[in-house]
C-alpha cells in the first residue's frame, strides 16, 4: 500500500483524465467541482495539452464538440445548473456520434439550490436531459479510487461506442480525500490509435460531413435506429454493479455513490442487529443492471432504494424488478445525506410491515 497518495475526488478524476490521454479539457467553474477545473488548468498546460476556461458551460460543451470532431480525447465537467446548460450540446454530440467524457459533481437543486451534495440529477443523467432519442453511458463510482478508475473506462467506452459517457458523482465524492493508487492507463487494444472520423486530417481523401442533422425522408429515423442498436449493444455489454452479502439476504438495499457507502455502513449495523440485509450497487446507472436485479427479485421480496433524491433511481429499480417485489424508498434531497440509523430503522419497519404497503421515509 506504499504507493498510495491522498487525493481529493475531483483531483483524482483530473489526474486520471491526464493519464488517460485527455487532449482537450474545456470547463467553467462551479462548486462543488472547482478543484477539477483548477487541477486541469494546471496539469493540462504542464503537459502541453489544451485547457480553456470557456466563457460559459455552453461554450465548453461546444468546444468539446469541435475538439472531438478533430479526433481529440475530450472532456468537460460541471455541476447541476451547468450540466443543464450543456443538454443541447450533449444531445448534439450523441446525435453526431462523437465521443466525449464528462462529469457532473451533483449539488442541491432545483435552481441555484445550494452547493451541498446531491444525487438529484439522476433523471437528467440517465434519461438524457436533452431532446430526442439518445442515451449517455453513466458511471456512478463510490470512492476516490473508483473515480480514478472509471475515468479511464469513461474515455474508453466513449471512444469504443462513439458516445458521450459521464461520471455522476455527488458533491461528497468530489470533495472527499482518500488514499488512491495511481495505476497506469493502458489503452485497450481494440481502440484505434487514430479516430476514423476526425476532420481536418490531410491524409483522409474524401471530405467528411459531421453532423447531427439528417433531413430527407426517413434518414434521421434510420440514423436513430442505428443509434438504438448501439444502445442495445451497450445494454448487453457494459452493465456494471457490485453485490454485497446477498447470499442469505432477505431484504436488499439498492444504492449508488455516497448513498451506497452510507447504506453499506447501515447494512453492517443492521446485520449486527440480526437483520439479513444485503446490498446491490449499480455502478452503471445507464445501462442499468436490469437483468441482475430482476433475477434477484425472484427470491427477494423487499428492496430499499437509498438515494440522495426524492425518488428517481427507484423508478429504474421498479422497472428492473417488474412488480416482483416491493420497492421502498429512502430519499434525501438537497444536501441531506442519509443517516445510518435512519436506514436501519426503515429496514426494520419494512420487515415488520405487511401486504403491499410501500414505505418511504418522507
Amino acid at each position: 500500500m506504499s504507493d498510495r497518495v491522498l487525493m481529493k475526488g475531483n483531483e483524482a478524476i483530473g489526474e486520471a483524465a491526464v493519464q488517460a490521454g485527455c487532449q482537450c479539457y474545456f470547463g467553467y467553474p462551479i462548486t462543488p467541482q472547482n478543484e477539477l477545473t483548477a487541477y486541469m488548468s494546471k496539469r493540462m498546460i504542464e503537459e502541453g495539452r489544451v485547457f480553456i476556461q470557456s466563457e460559459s458551460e455552453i461554450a465548453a460543451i461546444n468546444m468539446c464538440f469541435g475538439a472531438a470532431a478533430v479526433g481529440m480525447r475530450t472532456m468537460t465537467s460541471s455541476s447541476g445548473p451547468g450540466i443543464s446548460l450543456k443538454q443541447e450540446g450533449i444531445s448534439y454530440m450523441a446525435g453526431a456520434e462523437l465521443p466525449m467524457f464528462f462529469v457532473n459533481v451533483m449539488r442541491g437543486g432545483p435552481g441555484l439550490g445550494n452547493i451541498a451534495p446531491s444525487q438529484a440529477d439522476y433523471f437528467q443523467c440517465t434519461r438524457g436531459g436533452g431532446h430526442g432519442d439518445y442515451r449517455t453511458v453513466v458511471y456512478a463510482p463510490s470512492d476516490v479510487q473508483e473515480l480514478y478508475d472509471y475515468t479511464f473506462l469513461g474515455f474508453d467506452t466513449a471512444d469504443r461506442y462513439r458516445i458521450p459517457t459521464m461520471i455522476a458523482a455527488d458533491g461528497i465524492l468530489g470533495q472527499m480525500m482518500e488514499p488512491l493508487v495511481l495505476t497506469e492507463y493502458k489503452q485497450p487494444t481494440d481502440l484505434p490509435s487514430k479516430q476514423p472520423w476526425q476532420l481536418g486530417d490531410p491524409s483522409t481523401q474524401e471530405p467528411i460531413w459531421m453532423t447531427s442533422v439528417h433531413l430527407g425522408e426517413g434518414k434521421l429515423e434510420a440514423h436513430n435506429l442505428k443509434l438504438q442498436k448501439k444502445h442495445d449493444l451497450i445494454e448487453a455489454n457494459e452493465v456494471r454493479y457490485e453485490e454485497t452479502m446477498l447470499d442469505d439476504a432477505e431484504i436488499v438495499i439498492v444504492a449508488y455513490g455516497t448513498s451506497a457507502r452510507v447504506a453499506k455502513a447501515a447494512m453492517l449495523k443492521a446485520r449486527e442487529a440480526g437483520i439479513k440485509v444485503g446490498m446491490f450497487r449499480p455502478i452503471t446507472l445507464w445501462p442499468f443492471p436490469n437483468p441482475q436485479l430482476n433475477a434477484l427479485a425472484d427470491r427477494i421480496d423487499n428492496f430499499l432504494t437509498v438515494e440522495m433524491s426524492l425518488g428517481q433511481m427507484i423508478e429504474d429499480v421498479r422497472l428492473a424488478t417488474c412488480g416482483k417485489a416491493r420497492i421502498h424508498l429512502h430519499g434525501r434531497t438537497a444536501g441531506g445525506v442519509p443517516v445510518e440509523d435512519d436506514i436501519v430503522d426503515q429496514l426494520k419497519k419494512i420487515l415488520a410491515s405487511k401486504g403491499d404497503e410501500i414505505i418511504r421515509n418522507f
Partner: protein
Amino acid sequence: MEQQVFGMPKAMKPEQTLYCPGCGHGVAHRLVAELVDEFGLRDRAIGIAPVGCSVFADKYWNFDVISAAHGRAPAVATGMKRGRPDSFVICYQGDGDLAAIGTAETIHAANRGEHFVTIFVNNAIYGMTGGQMAPTTLIGQPSQTCQLGRDAAMMGHPIRVCELIKDLPGVAFAARGSVDTPKNVLTVKKHIKKGFQNSIDGKGWSLIEIVSPCPTNWGMTPRKALTWLRENMLEHYELGVFRDCDAGNGGGA
C-alpha cells in the same frame, strides 16, 4: 489559346444549391471555395455550417464540413483549432446565428483571438426559419415577428457587428463588404483573402461580414432585393475595413 478565366472552383462540389434564386449565400460559398483553392487548403480546411439556410454547406463545399449548434460555431471552431492547430477553420454564420444566440461565443472567440476566419452573412433576417426579425433587421423593416416593421424602442437597434468587436485586442481583421456589385464582390474576396492569410499566420481572429440579399424573406424579386440592399442596408451597414492588424491599427493575439 483560349483560357477559362472563370469556372467552378475545385473546392466546390458540382451540386446545385437549394438556395432561393438570388440568395447571397451562393456567392459567399463560392468566394470561400475559390480561396481554399488558391491557398491550397482543401486537405486541411474544415468548414463550419451553422444553423441557418447554410446548414447544408457540406453539400456544396468540397472539403470537411461540420454542423454546429445554433450560434455555437465559434466555440466549435475554437475546439477544433485548439485541438488541431494545423487545421484551417472557416466559421460560416448567419446574422441570427452570430449576433443573437451566438453573441457570447462570438465575442469571446474574438477576445481570445482564436486563429480562425469567420464569414458572416448578414441578410437582416432569419432566412431558414421563414423570415423572423434578426438582430440586424433594419428599423422599419417588417418581418414575421415584427409585422409592422422593427421598432427601436421595443426591439432595439440593428447591431453593427464589425463596429462592436473591432477594438477587442484578439481581432486581427474586421471588414464589411457586400455582394451587390461585381466590384463589391471582389472586395469581399480581398477581405476573405486577408482573413485567410491572418489565420495561416496565426495573427488572431478575422471577421468578414457580407451584406447579402434574402429575396424570399424580404418578399422581393432578386433584383429588387439588390436595389433595396443598396438603398437601405448599406446606409446602416457602412462598407469598409474596421480593423486590420497589419495596417497599424492593432490586432492580433
